[in-house]
């Protein structure tokens, strides 16, 4: 997907620290500072939800923003992570960190299966295949005995981190979620700026040329897919612990559309875009809940407006204005 490419801008900037350019470092610092003080004046559960979705959107952005692959079935991995974490935490009694990790691993495994099919095609076909496969996964969740059908897995205990730190208090859980998010965020950033990430971008720009340079592009795409699915699984798992539930909503194709919307609103191919996009959409959802029936219509309008007028997204536009890479 033609993400606005800031790599060649006049002030593209060179990395100053851990692959962050100076403006990125400022933005990252601001983000960390915000995460650190936010729970004292914002509702922690709301913030945790934003962070989970931000991680989900970052994972999704890894595929679309850097490899140019639009997956329309990312809810499958998000949902899978949620169910696995919820099940292992509730039934097996795993500690939260293991449960989340397992959610990520199984999500990645699912990504491996679906990804190896989907990467056979690109563009629109890729989108439709991921959508159709995600629908099959949805059927599976509906049927599988461990998911509790339409009731979902309820009353999932948050447990104690490493068996020691009790997470039942919202604030304790919040720091765990914040840590998971920041780790995931840095991981995505690291992947994107590694040589591996450079090849992904090369594939996005011109796949035949990348092949002619001797890269097995399918392998690269598949690895990116698996990484993205795994991170989505971690995000879904974390969310299921925050709310103590794992339900079909997280695996429904509407959720796949939502994560596309978040990334689009924030800015495709920008490292901070998905975070901002997730914050915007979740805030909107929360406030529209009291607004009544117009939620889907308003979401649709944002979609249309973004595609027609703000393709760079919020962060993309700010970056363009400031002439920096964010």
């Amino acid at each position, binding site marked *: 997907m033609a993400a606005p490419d800031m790599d060649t801008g006049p002030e593209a900037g060179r990395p100053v620290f851990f692959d962050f350019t100076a403006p990125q470092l400022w933005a990252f610092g601001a983000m960390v500072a915000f995460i650190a003080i936010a729970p004292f004046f914002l509702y922690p559960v709301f913030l945790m939800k934003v962070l989970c979705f931000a991680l989900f959107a970052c994972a999704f952005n890894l595929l679309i923003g850097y490899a140019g692959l639009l997956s329309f079935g990312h809810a499958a991995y998000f949902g899978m992570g949620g169910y696995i974490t919820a099940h292992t935490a509730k039934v097996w009694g795993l500690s939260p960190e293991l449960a989340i990790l397992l959610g990520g691993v199984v999500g990645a495994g699912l990504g491996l299966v679906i990804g190896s099919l989907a990467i056979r095609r690109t563009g629109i076909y890729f989108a439709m295949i991921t959508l159709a496969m995600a629908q099959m996964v949805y059927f599976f969740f509906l049927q599988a005995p461990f998911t509790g059908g339409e009731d979902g897995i309820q009353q999932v205990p948050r447990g104690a981190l490493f068996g020691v730190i009790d997470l039942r208090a919202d604030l304790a859980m919040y720091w765990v979620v914040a840590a998971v998010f920041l780790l995931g965020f840095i991981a995505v950033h690291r992947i994107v700026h590694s040589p591996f990430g450079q090849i992904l971008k090369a594939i996005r720009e011109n796949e035949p040329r990348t092949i002619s340079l001797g890269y097995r592009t399918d392998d690269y795409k598949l690895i990116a897919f698996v990484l993205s699915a795994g991170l989505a699984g971690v995000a879904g798992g974390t969310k299921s612990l925050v709310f103590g*539930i794992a339900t079909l*909503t997280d695996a429904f194709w509407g959720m796949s559309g939502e994560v596309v919307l978040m990334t689009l609103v924030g800015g495709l191919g920008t490292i901070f875009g998905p975070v901002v996009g997730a914050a915007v959409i979740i805030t909107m959802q929360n406030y529209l809940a009291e607004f009544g*029936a117009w939620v889907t219509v308003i979401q649709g309008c944002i979609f249309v407006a973004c595609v027609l007028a703000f393709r760079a997204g919020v962060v993309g536009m700010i970056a363009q204005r400031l002439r920096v890479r964010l």
Partner: protein
Amino acid sequence: MEKIDRRAILAALAAAPSIGMTRRAGAQAANTLKIGVLTDMSGPFRDISGPTSAVAARTAVQDFGVAARGWNVEVVVGDHQNRPDVGVTLARQWIDRDGVDVIIDVPNSGVALAVNTVVRERNKVYLNSTAATVELTGAQCSPNTVHWTYDTWMLARSTGAALVRAGGDSWFFITADYAFGHSLETQTANFVRGAGGRVLGTVRHPFPGTTDFSSFLVQAQSSRAKVVGLANAGVDTINSVKQAGEFGLMRRGVKVAGLLLFANDVNGLGLATAQGAVCSETFYWDLNERTRAVTRRIVANGAQNNWPSMGHAGCYGAVTHYLKVAADMGLAAAKANGVDVVNRMKAMPTDDDAFGQGTIRSDGRKLHPCYLFEVKTPAESRGPWDYYKQIGVTPGNEAFRPLADGGCTLPTT
């Protein structure tokens, strides 16, 4: 120019965090009660709950004459969008931030059970009307919860047993292939056999995404069963009934029993299509003088296009009973402790215009009769929403799952 832009953007960025700021709950006046109607305004349950539920709750408040008592009762409405996380976040914010005392309605089992946990943690009151799951009064029962209107056990019991008594003794099931459909089918089949009927066959259709039921209906037809039981819900049931009409099942005297079919669905089907279908509800506007009167009031308050069915009536009945108890124990006490309120609700017999007299059992199950209806033909219907004729009734003490079978561990009162 460019510098200014940069500054403007940075200023905007700095201001951004104020979005989503929590509003501090203002000191709640002691004479104020807040009722939160948590419902589906934008999804498949919109018609069986949604706006009409809110109207029903407001009508109950109005009928109770709160103004004359010097009370201030606010009804707030939220759309959970069929997402449990949105439902949970909204419920928590309502309780923690806005001082909501009672949450009502909540269709969609997944959301309903999630909210059940939140309300229990916060010790408020939860009056569920439109969720179908028996879990709310079973393993996941809570001392803060009343499940008012109906559940799957009751539907199975009413439609299964009563229809066999009315002569429909051989059955074929068309079942949505997921837990809800399976349990509805199994429960109904048990009642059919218990009442001396036979089950000739079953076919399971994928859920969701089945639009065409013709092949299942043909299979049902070739089984020569007298009753085709539809163990599905919502659009699936509507499509099944519509196509059963097309294939002439009702014309040939086969009873098509929607195990979860509401008056609103019948309205969507039209009598020409739905005539002869059978279903169970605990409320119908044309049962007696009281139900007609309360329906007139609810319709006049803003439900002209979508008349109340049992879920909406449940919101009315539950709010009415809640307000009575609040008046009885005093507002301050009612706001302080949700378990106390629900215990008082269980202790006090209920009596409202929608359901008449009834009781609430120790597991939170509201008990009232359940009616078996057959959908009228267009010729029999005399006006708008004149859809049902009653063909059977199950008394309140038999209509619901026995306390002992539910696995609820709350102490009996």
